[in-house]
């Protein structure tokens, strides 16, 4: 599947239940058109990972996800040998009949996400999630893979990508990424969505939610973002919360139900305490007025 215009891609993303703004659609489109990795940054919960998943759906491609963490190494990102099977194989064979070539052949190879993505015949979206969590050594290695789209396994040789996967990297900016990696990629910053878009997103992701409730929930979260909070809620929190409110059978919000369910929007005790009492009542009023 390929897209000739941004509008076509946007329509396909909508069909995959994802509502991108024009900037994100353009970024994803250019990533495909220029065959370059796309680096998505933004606050937690603005839909970075979701964007990659929806792109895979829109492209009818397989999503391969590599979740990064500190200490992530080749054995967990690219490939590893299946040691228990190798040992068993040596023992089961006649003494001296197993060669090293046989032992380090494709049969004993465990393929991890990067190798899977490079060595695939079907279309692939490779999501490298939270790259900022991996350490710099891994980042340097990744840079190599993303420049040549090939992986070398000493025992087997070099494996070249027969079709380049679409690559999406996400970062929460816990550290600055290396310039070389940034130069290699397109960059898009995802901000919080506009209120109209957020209402649309809630309606799309929480089927059957009353329009009024969706508008009030989105409005209230928007008010929260205007406060001085340790961790302002993202779209993911709005969706969670709207689901909770909808499950409670609410038609609209009031101070009482907000107080009961605040834990699905705010994840820090200080933040919850900061909006208790008068603040909460005022925000509820403002959200309700705005939604009218």
């Amino acid at each position, binding site marked *: 599947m390929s897209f000739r*215009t*941004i509008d076509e891609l946007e329509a396909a993303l909508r069909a995959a239940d994802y509502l991108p703004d*024009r*900037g994100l659609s*353009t*970024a994803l*489109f*250019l990533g495909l*058109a*220029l065959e*370059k990795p*796309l*680096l998505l*940054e933004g606050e937690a919960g603005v839909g970075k990972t979701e964007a990659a998943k929806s792109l895979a759906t829109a492209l009818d491609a397989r999503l391969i996800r590599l979740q990064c*963490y*500190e*200490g*992530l*190494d080749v054995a967990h990102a690219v490939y590893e*040998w299946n*040691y228990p099977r*190798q*040992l*068993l*194989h*040596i*023992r*089961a064979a006649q*003494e*001296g009949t*197993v060669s*090293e070539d046989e*032992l380090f052949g494709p049969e004993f190879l465990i393929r991890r996400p990067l190798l899977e993505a490079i060595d695939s015949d079907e279309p692939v979206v490779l999501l490298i999630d939270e790259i900022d969590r991996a*350490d*710099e*050594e891994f980042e340097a290695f990744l840079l190599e893979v993303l420049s040549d789209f090939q992986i070398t396994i000493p025992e087997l040789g070099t494996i070249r990508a027969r079709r380049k996967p679409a690559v999406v990297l996400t970062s*929460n*900016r*816990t*550290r600055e990424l290396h*310039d070389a990696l*940034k*130069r290699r*990629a*397109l*960059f*898009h*910053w995802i901000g919080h969505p506009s209120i109209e878009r957020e209402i649309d997103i809630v309606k799309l992701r929480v089927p059957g939610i009353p329009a009024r409730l969706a508008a009030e929930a989105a409005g209230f979260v928007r008010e929260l973002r205007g406060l*001085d909070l*340790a*961790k302002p809620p993202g779209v993911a929190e709005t969706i969670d919360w709207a689901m909770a409110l909808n499950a409670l059978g609410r038609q609209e919000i009031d101070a009482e139900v907000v107080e009961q369910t605040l834990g699905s929007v705010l994840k820090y005790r*200080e933040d919850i305490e900061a909006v208790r009492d008068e603040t909460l009542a005022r925000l509820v009023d403002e959200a309700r007025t705005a939604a009218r």
Partner: protein
Amino acid sequence: MPAPGDAIARHVVTFGRVLREVGLEVGPGRIGDALRGLDAVDLTRQEDVYFALRQTLVSRQDELDLFDRAFLAWFLRAPVLPPVRGKEALQPARSVAVPVERLSEGGEEEPGGEPLEVGASVHELLREKDFAEMSPDEFRRLRRLIQAIARMRPRRSSRRRQPDPGGDLLDMRRLVRRSLRTGGDPVDRAYRSRKQVPRKLVVLCDVSGSMDAYSRALLLFLHAVVGSGSGVEAFAFGTRLSRLTPDLATRDPEAAIDRCTAAVVDWGAGTRIGASLKEFNDVYGRRALSRGAVVVIVSDGWERDDPDLVAREMARLARAAYAIVWVNPLKGNPEYQPLAGGMRAALPHVDRFLAGHNLRSLEELAAVLAGIERRHAA
């Protein structure tokens, strides 16, 4: 008929030059991407042109604003000129001639060997002397001693492993290879161990009026700490917070200190510890800069505003950090009691409380940093 394409290319190349002038890094590779990007989108849609250029030419969130202004000015002919990046404030202020001026020449004629082990009485005296009472000459000799201290960094074990015959984790790849010779019996075993890497270190240094006497020595210490490797972040605060890491990352301490002095405009003004900590937590804590880090706060704890805010922000910081060390030069005085409101509010969240008024106390600080343990779950 290549005419329209040429016009666009010229336009983009010139725009690249505009961006470079305002301080963005725009190489030929990016210009090429931008042209290919424009080729792929509908040029009659301004929004698409904007995003195509932005996504190919900019790679940092904090440069978006600069890009937007340049885009407005260049493509939309808006009557705003892109501002020159806020570097004016960071020009080295040569007039601030603190006595540390010639530090880079000083120290070279020191006797060789490990500065820390020089037991000569001169050094002994220097070690005990309060920074506030030092002469410029003594201060100069301080530099190398401080550097040696700063190299001791807290370490933690990484998830990354390295071959190590004495290690405690089996190296399976080698083990399998060696087992070939013994018919699959893992007789000859290879081991690996976890690599030790420096723990993140965050230093927050109070440079307000009440700390003025110690600021010079502490900035030297900061400079040496930042020079000791990656994973170090340094900040100065007074009435507001200012990130020093980029300024301290130069090899020349004199220039670095000049730049710091100029960058922290409230040098010598009052202290708003709570507000500064809040700014740190909000901006840098959210980016997980403090998570798992050893945080060193250098301050006398004289809070101008509300001590409650200090307590709240210290609690937030303590939850993210691995350990908090508070260095208060006043503690060097045996009579000292932590009565200042800000200090009292902060202490419950502090793991180690140290003096830092002379060289010996900086050594103590370094030793604490090298061996610090996580506080018991509070």
